Protein backbone atom coordinates (compact mmCIF):
# COMPACT_ATOMS: atom_id res chain seq x y z
CA UNK A 1 0.00 0.00 0.00
CA UNK A 2 2.70 2.39 1.01
CA UNK A 3 5.14 1.14 -1.60
CA UNK A 4 2.96 1.49 -4.69
CA UNK A 5 3.15 5.31 -5.14
CA UNK A 6 6.92 5.23 -4.59
CA UNK A 7 7.33 2.60 -7.26
CA UNK A 8 5.25 4.57 -9.72
CA UNK A 9 7.43 7.61 -9.11
CA UNK A 10 10.68 5.77 -9.44
CA UNK A 11 9.89 4.03 -12.68
CA UNK A 12 8.99 7.06 -14.77
CA UNK A 13 11.80 9.15 -13.21
CA UNK A 14 14.33 6.75 -14.63
CA UNK A 15 12.67 6.78 -18.00
CA UNK A 16 15.16 6.00 -20.70
CA UNK A 17 14.43 7.66 -24.02
CA UNK A 18 16.57 6.65 -26.95
CA UNK A 19 19.08 4.93 -24.70
CA UNK A 20 19.65 8.01 -22.54
CA UNK A 21 18.49 9.28 -19.19
CA UNK A 22 15.85 11.99 -19.62
CA UNK A 23 14.92 13.58 -16.30
CA UNK A 24 12.55 16.11 -17.89
CA UNK A 25 10.40 13.48 -19.56
CA UNK A 26 10.44 11.29 -16.45
CA UNK A 27 9.36 14.17 -14.23
CA UNK A 28 6.60 15.26 -16.56
CA UNK A 29 5.33 11.73 -17.05
CA UNK A 30 5.28 11.22 -13.27
CA UNK A 31 3.21 14.39 -12.83
CA UNK A 32 0.88 13.43 -15.67
CA UNK A 33 0.33 10.02 -14.11
CA UNK A 34 -0.99 11.94 -11.07
CA UNK A 35 -3.46 13.74 -13.33
CA UNK A 36 -1.57 16.99 -13.92
CA UNK A 37 -2.05 18.47 -17.40
CA UNK A 38 0.99 18.22 -19.73
CA UNK A 39 1.32 22.03 -19.98
CA UNK A 40 1.35 22.46 -16.21
CA UNK A 41 3.80 19.58 -15.82
CA UNK A 42 6.14 21.27 -18.28
CA UNK A 43 5.77 24.62 -16.48
CA UNK A 44 6.52 22.94 -13.16
CA UNK A 45 9.61 21.30 -14.64
CA UNK A 46 11.07 24.45 -16.22
CA UNK A 47 12.33 26.30 -13.11
CA UNK A 48 14.00 23.20 -11.67
CA UNK A 49 17.03 22.92 -14.00
CA UNK A 50 17.39 26.72 -14.01
CA UNK A 51 17.62 26.92 -10.23
CA UNK A 52 19.87 23.88 -10.19
CA UNK A 53 22.30 25.31 -12.74
CA UNK A 54 22.28 28.73 -11.06
CA UNK A 55 23.11 27.04 -7.76
CA UNK A 56 25.80 25.01 -9.49
CA UNK A 57 27.24 28.20 -10.98
CA UNK A 58 27.33 29.96 -7.61
CA UNK A 59 28.85 26.93 -5.89
CA UNK A 60 31.34 26.79 -8.75
CA UNK A 61 32.23 30.41 -8.05
CA UNK A 62 32.74 29.69 -4.35
CA UNK A 63 34.90 26.69 -5.22
CA UNK A 64 36.96 28.57 -7.78
CA UNK A 65 37.50 31.55 -5.45
CA UNK A 66 38.70 29.16 -2.77
CA UNK A 67 40.86 27.33 -5.30
CA UNK A 68 42.31 30.60 -6.56
CA UNK A 69 43.22 31.74 -3.07
CA UNK A 70 44.65 28.40 -2.00
CA UNK A 71 46.60 27.76 -5.21
CA UNK A 72 47.92 31.33 -5.25
CA UNK A 73 49.06 30.86 -1.67
CA UNK A 74 50.72 27.54 -2.46
CA UNK A 75 52.53 28.99 -5.47
CA UNK A 76 53.83 31.80 -3.28
CA UNK A 77 54.68 29.41 -0.43
CA UNK A 78 51.97 30.73 1.85
CA UNK A 79 49.06 28.81 3.36
CA UNK A 80 46.16 31.03 2.31
CA UNK A 81 42.76 31.18 4.05
CA UNK A 82 42.84 28.88 7.05
CA UNK A 83 40.47 29.93 9.82
CA UNK A 84 37.10 30.33 8.05
CA UNK A 85 35.89 26.76 8.13
CA UNK A 86 38.05 23.68 7.57
CA UNK A 87 40.93 24.62 5.25
CA UNK A 88 39.30 28.01 4.81
CA UNK A 89 36.53 26.73 2.54
CA UNK A 90 34.10 29.27 4.01
CA UNK A 91 36.35 32.20 3.10
CA UNK A 92 34.50 33.00 -0.18
CA UNK A 93 31.21 32.92 1.76
CA UNK A 94 32.68 35.31 4.32
CA UNK A 95 33.91 37.58 1.50
CA UNK A 96 30.47 37.57 -0.11
CA UNK A 97 28.71 38.25 3.18
CA UNK A 98 31.03 41.16 3.88
CA UNK A 99 30.30 42.67 0.44
CA UNK A 100 26.58 42.09 0.98
CA UNK A 101 26.37 44.16 4.16
CA UNK A 102 28.73 46.87 2.96
CA UNK A 103 27.47 50.36 2.21
CA UNK A 104 26.45 50.80 -1.40
CA UNK A 105 28.12 54.01 -2.55
CA UNK A 106 27.26 55.88 -5.73
CA UNK A 107 29.98 58.49 -6.23
CA UNK A 108 29.11 62.17 -6.44
CA UNK A 109 28.41 63.36 -10.03
CA UNK A 110 28.36 59.78 -11.30
CA UNK A 111 25.48 58.68 -13.52
CA UNK A 112 23.43 56.67 -11.03
CA UNK A 113 21.36 54.70 -13.52
CA UNK A 114 24.24 53.62 -15.78
CA UNK A 115 26.44 53.04 -12.73
CA UNK A 116 23.88 50.55 -11.40
CA UNK A 117 23.13 49.04 -14.78
CA UNK A 118 26.80 48.37 -15.60
CA UNK A 119 27.44 45.41 -13.27
CA UNK A 120 24.01 43.95 -14.08
CA UNK A 121 24.79 44.05 -17.79
CA UNK A 122 28.10 42.32 -17.10
CA UNK A 123 26.62 39.57 -14.94
CA UNK A 124 23.38 38.70 -16.72
CA UNK A 125 24.83 37.53 -20.07
CA UNK A 126 27.39 35.42 -18.26
CA UNK A 127 24.71 33.68 -16.21
CA UNK A 128 22.54 33.34 -19.31
CA UNK A 129 25.41 31.57 -21.09
CA UNK A 130 25.08 28.67 -18.65
CA UNK A 131 21.98 27.80 -20.65
CA UNK A 132 24.09 25.87 -23.13
CA UNK A 133 26.59 24.12 -20.86
CA UNK A 134 25.87 20.39 -21.12
CA UNK A 135 26.70 18.05 -18.24
CA UNK A 136 25.27 15.04 -20.03
CA UNK A 137 23.15 13.99 -22.97
CA UNK A 138 20.02 15.61 -21.56
CA UNK A 139 21.56 17.34 -18.57
CA UNK A 140 21.42 20.94 -19.68
CA UNK A 141 18.80 23.66 -19.43
CA UNK A 142 18.13 23.90 -23.12
CA UNK A 143 19.66 22.23 -26.16
CA UNK A 144 19.54 25.39 -28.27
CA UNK A 145 20.25 24.73 -31.93
CA UNK A 146 22.59 27.71 -32.19
CA UNK A 147 24.18 26.82 -28.80
CA UNK A 148 27.77 27.95 -29.03
CA UNK A 149 26.86 30.88 -31.26
CA UNK A 150 24.47 32.06 -28.56
CA UNK A 151 27.36 32.09 -26.11
CA UNK A 152 29.51 34.21 -28.47
CA UNK A 153 26.61 36.61 -28.99
CA UNK A 154 25.96 36.90 -25.26
CA UNK A 155 29.61 37.42 -24.40
CA UNK A 156 29.74 40.43 -26.72
CA UNK A 157 27.16 42.19 -24.52
CA UNK A 158 29.66 42.20 -21.68
CA UNK A 159 31.97 44.98 -23.01
CA UNK A 160 28.96 47.31 -23.18
CA UNK A 161 28.42 46.80 -19.46
CA UNK A 162 32.11 47.28 -18.73
CA UNK A 163 32.25 50.48 -20.78
CA UNK A 164 29.04 51.67 -19.11
CA UNK A 165 30.50 51.02 -15.66
CA UNK A 166 33.77 52.73 -16.51
CA UNK A 167 32.24 55.75 -18.18
CA UNK A 168 29.53 56.44 -15.60
CA UNK A 169 31.90 56.28 -12.63
CA UNK A 170 33.14 59.84 -13.19
CA UNK A 171 36.69 58.66 -12.60
CA UNK A 172 39.58 58.74 -15.04
CA UNK A 173 40.94 55.35 -13.99
CA UNK A 174 37.54 53.76 -14.31
CA UNK A 175 37.09 55.28 -17.75
CA UNK A 176 40.49 54.06 -18.93
CA UNK A 177 39.81 50.62 -17.50
CA UNK A 178 36.41 50.48 -19.16
CA UNK A 179 37.85 51.51 -22.53
CA UNK A 180 40.62 48.96 -22.22
CA UNK A 181 38.15 46.23 -21.27
CA UNK A 182 35.99 47.05 -24.28
CA UNK A 183 38.97 47.14 -26.65
CA UNK A 184 40.26 43.85 -25.29
CA UNK A 185 36.93 42.05 -25.42
CA UNK A 186 36.25 43.20 -28.97
CA UNK A 187 39.67 42.27 -30.33
CA UNK A 188 39.75 38.81 -28.73
CA UNK A 189 36.20 38.01 -29.75
CA UNK A 190 37.27 37.65 -33.39
CA UNK A 191 39.90 34.88 -33.06
CA UNK A 192 37.65 33.24 -30.46
CA UNK A 193 34.77 33.05 -32.90
CA UNK A 194 37.09 31.75 -35.65
CA UNK A 195 38.42 29.00 -33.36
CA UNK A 196 34.86 28.01 -32.48
CA UNK A 197 33.98 28.04 -36.17
CA UNK A 198 36.66 25.44 -36.90
CA UNK A 199 35.19 23.17 -34.21
CA UNK A 200 31.70 23.73 -35.59
CA UNK A 201 33.00 22.75 -39.01
CA UNK A 202 34.27 19.46 -37.59
CA UNK A 203 31.01 18.54 -35.89
CA UNK A 204 28.60 20.05 -38.45
CA UNK A 205 26.58 21.56 -35.62
CA UNK A 206 26.42 24.62 -33.39
CA UNK A 207 24.70 22.70 -30.62
CA UNK A 208 27.00 22.00 -27.67
CA UNK A 209 25.40 18.58 -27.11
CA UNK A 210 26.18 17.47 -30.65
CA UNK A 211 29.70 18.88 -30.45
CA UNK A 212 30.34 16.71 -27.40
CA UNK A 213 28.59 13.64 -28.81
CA UNK A 214 30.68 13.77 -31.96
CA UNK A 215 33.86 13.76 -29.80
CA UNK A 216 32.98 10.70 -27.77
CA UNK A 217 33.17 7.83 -30.22
CA UNK A 218 36.56 6.58 -29.00
CA UNK A 219 37.06 8.25 -25.61
CA UNK A 220 40.24 10.23 -25.14
CA UNK A 221 41.48 9.68 -28.70
CA UNK A 222 38.50 11.27 -30.40
CA UNK A 223 38.58 14.55 -28.47
CA UNK A 224 38.75 17.68 -30.57
CA UNK A 225 42.04 18.75 -29.03
CA UNK A 226 43.90 16.25 -31.25
CA UNK A 227 42.26 17.53 -34.40
CA UNK A 228 42.37 21.18 -33.37
CA UNK A 229 45.56 21.71 -31.29
CA UNK A 230 46.11 25.21 -32.66
CA UNK A 231 42.45 26.06 -32.28
CA UNK A 232 42.58 24.80 -28.69
CA UNK A 233 45.47 27.14 -27.85
CA UNK A 234 43.84 30.11 -29.58
CA UNK A 235 40.55 29.45 -27.83
CA UNK A 236 42.24 29.09 -24.45
CA UNK A 237 44.22 32.34 -24.84
CA UNK A 238 41.14 34.22 -26.03
CA UNK A 239 39.04 32.87 -23.19
CA UNK A 240 41.62 34.04 -20.63
CA UNK A 241 41.64 37.44 -22.31
CA UNK A 242 37.84 37.54 -22.27
CA UNK A 243 37.84 36.74 -18.55
CA UNK A 244 40.36 39.55 -18.02
CA UNK A 245 42.72 37.30 -16.15
CA UNK A 246 46.48 37.59 -15.92
CA UNK A 247 48.45 37.98 -18.19
CA UNK A 248 45.60 39.89 -19.85
CA UNK A 249 44.22 41.58 -16.74
CA UNK A 250 45.16 45.08 -17.77
CA UNK A 251 41.62 46.54 -17.63
CA UNK A 252 42.02 46.21 -13.87
CA UNK A 253 45.81 46.55 -13.69
CA UNK A 254 46.16 47.74 -10.11
CA UNK A 255 49.63 49.23 -10.60
CA UNK A 256 48.44 51.73 -13.18
CA UNK A 257 44.64 51.92 -13.01
CA UNK A 258 43.82 51.29 -9.31
CA UNK A 259 41.14 48.71 -10.16
CA UNK A 260 40.08 49.76 -13.65
CA UNK A 261 36.33 50.03 -14.19
CA UNK A 262 35.72 48.61 -10.69
CA UNK A 263 37.51 51.51 -8.98
CA UNK A 264 34.40 53.31 -7.75
CA UNK A 265 32.39 50.19 -6.97
CA UNK A 266 31.77 48.87 -3.49
CA UNK A 267 29.38 46.56 -1.71
CA UNK A 268 26.85 44.60 -3.71
CA UNK A 269 27.66 46.21 -7.06
CA UNK A 270 31.30 45.23 -6.70
CA UNK A 271 30.16 41.77 -5.65
CA UNK A 272 28.25 41.52 -8.95
CA UNK A 273 31.46 42.23 -10.88
CA UNK A 274 33.35 39.77 -8.73
CA UNK A 275 30.69 37.10 -9.16
CA UNK A 276 30.52 37.80 -12.88
CA UNK A 277 34.24 37.41 -13.39
CA UNK A 278 34.36 34.08 -11.56
CA UNK A 279 31.17 32.71 -13.13
CA UNK A 280 32.74 33.63 -16.45
CA UNK A 281 35.92 31.82 -15.48
CA UNK A 282 34.07 28.63 -14.53
CA UNK A 283 31.94 28.90 -17.66
CA UNK A 284 35.04 29.34 -19.82
CA UNK A 285 36.70 26.33 -18.25
CA UNK A 286 33.60 24.23 -18.89
CA UNK A 287 33.28 25.46 -22.46
CA UNK A 288 36.91 24.66 -23.26
CA UNK A 289 36.19 21.20 -21.87
CA UNK A 290 33.03 20.95 -23.98
CA UNK A 291 34.57 22.18 -27.23
CA UNK A 292 37.97 20.50 -27.08
CA UNK A 293 38.20 17.99 -24.24
CA UNK A 294 35.17 15.86 -24.88
CA UNK A 295 32.72 17.52 -22.44
CA UNK A 296 31.08 14.89 -20.28
CA UNK A 297 32.97 12.08 -22.04
CA UNK A 298 35.08 9.88 -19.83
CA UNK A 299 38.63 9.22 -21.22
CA UNK A 300 37.51 5.63 -21.83
CA UNK A 301 34.13 5.25 -23.58
CA UNK A 302 31.51 4.53 -20.90
CA UNK A 303 29.55 2.27 -23.27
CA UNK A 304 32.67 0.15 -23.70
CA UNK A 305 33.17 -0.04 -19.90
CA UNK A 306 29.52 -1.06 -19.43
CA UNK A 307 30.00 -3.78 -22.03
CA UNK A 308 33.07 -4.98 -20.17
CA UNK A 309 31.01 -5.34 -16.98
CA UNK A 310 28.17 -7.06 -18.94
CA UNK A 311 25.66 -4.39 -17.97
CA UNK A 312 22.86 -3.50 -20.38
CA UNK A 313 23.08 0.18 -21.40
CA UNK A 314 19.33 0.68 -20.95
CA UNK A 315 19.19 -0.38 -17.30
CA UNK A 316 18.34 2.54 -14.96
CA UNK A 317 21.37 1.88 -12.75
CA UNK A 318 23.82 2.14 -15.65
CA UNK A 319 22.07 5.27 -16.88
CA UNK A 320 22.30 6.96 -13.47
CA UNK A 321 25.94 5.96 -13.06
CA UNK A 322 26.74 7.20 -16.54
CA UNK A 323 25.03 10.54 -15.90
CA UNK A 324 26.91 10.98 -12.60
CA UNK A 325 30.22 10.11 -14.23
CA UNK A 326 29.40 12.63 -16.96
CA UNK A 327 28.70 15.45 -14.50
CA UNK A 328 31.81 14.68 -12.46
CA UNK A 329 33.98 14.46 -15.60
CA UNK A 330 32.72 17.76 -16.98
CA UNK A 331 33.26 19.58 -13.68
CA UNK A 332 36.66 17.96 -13.18
CA UNK A 333 37.84 18.99 -16.64
CA UNK A 334 36.55 22.52 -16.10
CA UNK A 335 38.29 22.86 -12.75
CA UNK A 336 41.55 21.42 -14.09
CA UNK A 337 41.50 24.20 -16.68
CA UNK A 338 40.70 26.76 -13.97
CA UNK A 339 43.65 25.47 -11.99
CA UNK A 340 45.81 25.90 -15.07
CA UNK A 341 44.53 29.47 -15.49
CA UNK A 342 45.41 30.25 -11.87
CA UNK A 343 48.89 28.80 -12.34
CA UNK A 344 49.26 30.88 -15.48
CA UNK A 345 48.30 33.96 -13.50
CA UNK A 346 51.32 33.59 -11.23
CA UNK A 347 53.66 32.59 -14.05
CA UNK A 348 53.21 35.20 -16.73
CA UNK A 349 53.83 38.94 -16.41
CA UNK A 350 51.08 41.29 -17.57
CA UNK A 351 51.30 42.39 -21.21
CA UNK A 352 51.16 46.06 -22.21
CA UNK A 353 48.05 47.38 -23.97
CA UNK A 354 49.89 47.70 -27.31
CA UNK A 355 51.31 44.18 -26.95
CA UNK A 356 47.82 42.94 -26.13
CA UNK A 357 46.28 44.45 -29.24
CA UNK A 358 49.24 43.41 -31.41
CA UNK A 359 48.94 39.87 -30.10
CA UNK A 360 45.22 39.77 -30.75
CA UNK A 361 45.12 41.29 -34.23
CA UNK A 362 48.54 40.46 -35.69
CA UNK A 363 49.14 37.01 -34.22
CA UNK A 364 45.96 35.26 -33.08
CA UNK A 365 43.69 36.49 -35.86
CA UNK A 366 45.91 35.36 -38.82
CA UNK A 367 46.66 32.06 -37.12
CA UNK A 368 42.97 31.49 -36.40
CA UNK A 369 42.19 32.23 -40.05
CA UNK A 370 44.89 29.82 -41.27
CA UNK A 371 43.61 27.24 -38.81
CA UNK A 372 40.10 27.63 -40.17
CA UNK A 373 41.28 27.27 -43.77
CA UNK A 374 43.43 24.23 -42.95
CA UNK A 375 40.50 22.65 -41.11
CA UNK A 376 38.25 23.26 -44.11
CA UNK A 377 40.86 21.75 -46.46
CA UNK A 378 41.35 18.71 -44.21
CA UNK A 379 37.60 18.27 -44.01
CA UNK A 380 37.44 18.12 -47.80
CA UNK A 381 40.44 15.78 -48.11
CA UNK A 382 39.81 13.43 -45.15
CA UNK A 383 36.05 13.56 -44.56
CA UNK A 384 36.26 10.42 -42.42
CA UNK A 385 38.45 12.03 -39.76
CA UNK A 386 37.32 15.64 -39.99
CA UNK A 387 33.56 15.23 -39.99
CA UNK A 388 32.76 15.21 -43.74
Amino acid at each position, binding site marked *: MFMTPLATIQLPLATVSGGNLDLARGFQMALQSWGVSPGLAHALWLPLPMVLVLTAAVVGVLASVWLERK*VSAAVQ*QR*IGPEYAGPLGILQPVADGLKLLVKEDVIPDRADGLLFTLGPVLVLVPVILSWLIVPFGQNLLISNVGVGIFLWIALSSIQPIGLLMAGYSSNNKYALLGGLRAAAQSISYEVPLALAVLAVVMLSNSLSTVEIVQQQNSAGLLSWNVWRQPVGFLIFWICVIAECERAPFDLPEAEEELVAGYQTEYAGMKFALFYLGSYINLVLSGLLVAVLYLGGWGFPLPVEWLAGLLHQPLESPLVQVVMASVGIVTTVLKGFLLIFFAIL*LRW*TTPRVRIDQLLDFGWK*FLLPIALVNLLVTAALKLVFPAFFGG
Partner: protein
Amino acid sequence: MFGFLKQVGDYSREAVDAAYGITQGLAVTFDHMRRRPITVQYPYEKLIPSERYRGRIHFEFDKCIACEVCVRVCPINLPVVDWVMNKETKKKQLNNYSIDFGVCIFCGNCVEYCPTNCLSMTEEYELAAFDRHSLNFDNVALGRLPTSVTMDPSVQPLRELAYLPKGAMDPHVVPHTDGRAGQLPQEIAAAAPESTSHSKEDSSI
Protein backbone atom coordinates in the same frame (compact mmCIF):
# COMPACT_ATOMS: atom_id res chain seq x y z
CA MET B 1 59.52 35.05 -51.93
CA PHE B 2 62.34 33.56 -49.84
CA GLY B 3 62.46 36.71 -47.73
CA PHE B 4 58.83 36.19 -46.87
CA LEU B 5 59.42 32.54 -46.03
CA LYS B 6 62.32 33.52 -43.79
CA GLN B 7 60.07 36.03 -42.04
CA VAL B 8 57.45 33.37 -41.45
CA GLY B 9 60.13 30.97 -40.19
CA ASP B 10 61.58 33.54 -37.80
CA TYR B 11 58.14 34.43 -36.56
CA SER B 12 57.19 30.85 -35.84
CA ARG B 13 60.55 30.22 -34.16
CA GLU B 14 59.91 33.20 -31.88
CA ALA B 15 56.45 31.89 -31.08
CA VAL B 16 57.84 28.46 -30.21
CA ASP B 17 60.54 30.06 -28.04
CA ALA B 18 57.91 32.09 -26.20
CA ALA B 19 55.81 28.96 -25.64
CA TYR B 20 58.89 27.16 -24.32
CA GLY B 21 59.59 30.04 -21.93
CA ILE B 22 56.04 30.01 -20.61
CA THR B 23 56.22 26.24 -20.12
CA GLN B 24 59.43 26.61 -18.14
CA GLY B 25 57.78 29.29 -16.01
CA LEU B 26 54.78 27.07 -15.40
CA ALA B 27 57.12 24.29 -14.29
CA VAL B 28 58.68 26.66 -11.76
CA THR B 29 55.35 27.80 -10.30
CA PHE B 30 54.04 24.23 -10.29
CA ASP B 31 57.12 23.05 -8.42
CA HIS B 32 56.61 25.74 -5.78
CA MET B 33 53.22 24.25 -4.89
CA ARG B 34 54.74 21.22 -3.21
CA ARG B 35 57.13 23.30 -1.09
CA ARG B 36 56.40 24.03 2.55
CA PRO B 37 55.05 27.49 3.37
CA ILE B 38 57.80 29.83 4.51
CA THR B 39 55.42 32.18 6.30
CA VAL B 40 55.20 32.54 10.08
CA GLN B 41 51.59 32.43 11.34
CA TYR B 42 52.18 35.55 13.37
CA PRO B 43 49.97 35.82 16.41
CA TYR B 44 50.25 32.06 16.99
CA GLU B 45 53.85 31.60 15.91
CA LYS B 46 56.65 34.09 16.43
CA LEU B 47 60.27 34.14 15.39
CA ILE B 48 62.83 34.24 18.18
CA PRO B 49 64.64 37.53 17.59
CA SER B 50 68.34 37.18 16.89
CA GLU B 51 70.76 37.75 19.77
CA ARG B 52 71.79 41.23 18.59
CA TYR B 53 68.21 42.27 17.88
CA ARG B 54 67.71 46.01 18.40
CA GLY B 55 64.28 46.20 19.96
CA ARG B 56 62.72 48.52 22.53
CA ILE B 57 65.32 50.00 24.92
CA HIS B 58 65.45 48.93 28.56
CA PHE B 59 66.55 51.41 31.20
CA GLU B 60 67.75 50.83 34.76
CA PHE B 61 66.95 53.88 36.83
CA ASP B 62 69.32 53.14 39.73
CA LYS B 63 72.41 52.77 37.54
CA CYS B 64 71.95 56.07 35.73
CA ILE B 65 74.32 58.91 36.66
CA ALA B 66 72.49 61.49 34.49
CA CYS B 67 75.60 62.16 32.42
CA GLU B 68 73.49 62.80 29.31
CA VAL B 69 75.92 60.95 27.02
CA CYS B 70 72.90 59.13 25.58
CA VAL B 71 71.41 62.47 24.59
CA ARG B 72 74.62 63.62 22.95
CA VAL B 73 75.15 60.47 20.86
CA CYS B 74 71.51 60.28 19.85
CA PRO B 75 71.00 61.44 16.24
CA ILE B 76 68.06 63.56 17.33
CA ASN B 77 68.84 64.11 21.03
CA LEU B 78 65.81 62.04 21.91
CA PRO B 79 66.24 60.85 25.54
CA VAL B 80 64.84 63.31 28.05
CA VAL B 81 66.99 63.30 31.20
CA ASP B 82 65.27 65.21 34.00
CA TRP B 83 67.73 65.81 36.83
CA VAL B 84 68.50 68.36 39.55
CA MET B 85 71.75 69.13 41.32
CA ASN B 86 71.64 67.81 44.87
CA LYS B 87 73.45 70.53 46.83
CA GLU B 88 74.15 68.32 49.84
CA THR B 89 75.74 65.34 48.09
CA LYS B 90 77.01 67.51 45.19
CA LYS B 91 75.69 64.90 42.80
CA LYS B 92 73.12 64.96 40.02
CA GLN B 93 69.85 63.47 41.17
CA LEU B 94 67.74 61.84 38.45
CA ASN B 95 64.01 62.57 38.66
CA ASN B 96 62.75 61.21 35.37
CA TYR B 97 64.06 59.61 32.20
CA SER B 98 62.04 59.03 29.05
CA ILE B 99 62.45 57.99 25.44
CA ASP B 100 59.75 58.46 22.82
CA PHE B 101 59.67 55.24 20.75
CA GLY B 102 57.44 56.88 18.18
CA VAL B 103 60.51 58.91 17.19
CA CYS B 104 63.41 56.59 18.12
CA ILE B 105 65.10 54.88 15.17
CA PHE B 106 66.59 52.07 17.32
CA CYS B 107 70.14 52.81 16.18
CA GLY B 108 71.51 51.74 19.56
CA ASN B 109 74.03 54.58 19.95
CA CYS B 110 72.79 55.39 23.46
CA VAL B 111 73.20 51.75 24.49
CA GLU B 112 76.67 51.69 22.96
CA TYR B 113 77.93 54.78 24.79
CA CYS B 114 76.19 54.53 28.17
CA PRO B 115 79.10 54.56 30.69
CA THR B 116 77.22 52.64 33.39
CA ASN B 117 75.41 50.19 31.09
CA CYS B 118 72.05 51.30 32.38
CA LEU B 119 70.61 51.21 28.82
CA SER B 120 70.22 47.96 26.92
CA MET B 121 68.38 46.62 23.89
CA THR B 122 65.50 44.16 24.40
CA GLU B 123 63.90 41.86 21.86
CA GLU B 124 60.52 43.56 22.08
CA TYR B 125 59.18 44.79 18.75
CA GLU B 126 55.41 44.87 19.22
CA LEU B 127 55.05 48.58 19.85
CA ALA B 128 51.65 49.17 18.23
CA ALA B 129 49.49 51.62 20.18
CA PHE B 130 46.20 53.43 19.74
CA ASP B 131 47.77 56.78 20.56
CA ARG B 132 51.25 57.88 19.57
CA HIS B 133 51.73 59.57 22.93
CA SER B 134 51.57 56.23 24.66
CA LEU B 135 54.82 55.36 22.90
CA ASN B 136 56.60 57.98 24.99
CA PHE B 137 58.00 55.62 27.68
CA ASP B 138 58.95 57.02 31.07
CA ASN B 139 61.49 55.39 33.38
CA VAL B 140 58.88 53.00 34.79
CA ALA B 141 57.82 51.78 31.35
CA LEU B 142 61.43 51.64 30.24
CA GLY B 143 62.27 49.46 33.23
CA ARG B 144 59.78 46.73 32.32
CA LEU B 145 61.14 43.55 30.78
CA PRO B 146 59.35 42.19 27.68
CA THR B 147 57.79 38.73 27.63
CA SER B 148 60.09 36.43 25.75
CA VAL B 149 58.42 34.49 22.93
CA THR B 150 59.99 31.31 24.31
CA MET B 151 58.24 31.92 27.67
CA ASP B 152 54.82 32.82 26.26
CA PRO B 153 52.56 29.73 26.48
CA SER B 154 50.22 31.03 23.76
CA VAL B 155 52.99 31.39 21.20
CA GLN B 156 54.95 28.76 19.34
CA PRO B 157 58.49 30.15 19.10
CA LEU B 158 60.31 29.52 15.83
CA ARG B 159 64.02 29.85 15.21
CA GLU B 160 65.26 31.96 12.34
CA LEU B 161 67.01 30.20 9.47
CA ALA B 162 70.54 31.09 10.65
CA TYR B 163 69.84 29.55 14.08
CA LEU B 164 68.72 26.17 12.78
CA PRO B 165 70.93 23.05 13.00
CA LYS B 166 72.97 22.18 9.94
CA GLY B 167 70.81 20.95 7.07
CA ALA B 168 67.50 21.90 8.71
CA MET B 169 65.32 24.27 6.68
CA ASP B 170 62.05 24.16 8.58
CA PRO B 171 61.87 25.47 12.16
CA HIS B 172 58.64 23.56 12.92
CA VAL B 173 60.32 20.16 13.11
CA VAL B 174 63.51 21.15 14.97
CA PRO B 175 63.61 20.13 18.67
CA HIS B 176 64.54 23.00 20.97
CA THR B 177 67.57 21.07 22.28
CA ASP B 178 69.34 21.02 18.89
CA GLY B 179 72.20 23.47 18.60
CA ARG B 180 72.61 25.89 15.74
CA ALA B 181 74.82 25.24 12.72
CA GLY B 182 78.48 26.12 13.22
CA GLN B 183 80.32 26.77 16.48
CA LEU B 184 79.56 29.22 19.24
CA PRO B 185 82.37 31.65 20.25
CA GLN B 186 83.01 29.65 23.47
CA GLU B 187 83.36 26.44 21.48
CA ILE B 188 85.86 28.07 19.12
CA ALA B 189 87.84 29.35 22.08
CA ALA B 190 87.84 25.94 23.79
CA ALA B 191 89.03 24.21 20.63
CA ALA B 192 92.09 26.47 20.19
CA PRO B 193 94.87 25.56 22.72
CA GLU B 194 97.61 27.47 20.81
CA SER B 195 96.02 30.86 21.17
CA THR B 196 95.38 30.33 24.91
CA SER B 197 99.10 29.63 25.54
CA HIS B 198 99.92 32.70 23.51
CA SER B 199 97.68 34.83 25.67
CA LYS B 200 99.37 33.39 28.76
CA GLU B 201 102.70 34.54 27.39
CA ASP B 202 101.21 37.93 26.83
CA SER B 203 99.96 38.13 30.39
CA SER B 204 103.33 37.05 31.76
CA ILE B 205 104.98 39.95 29.98
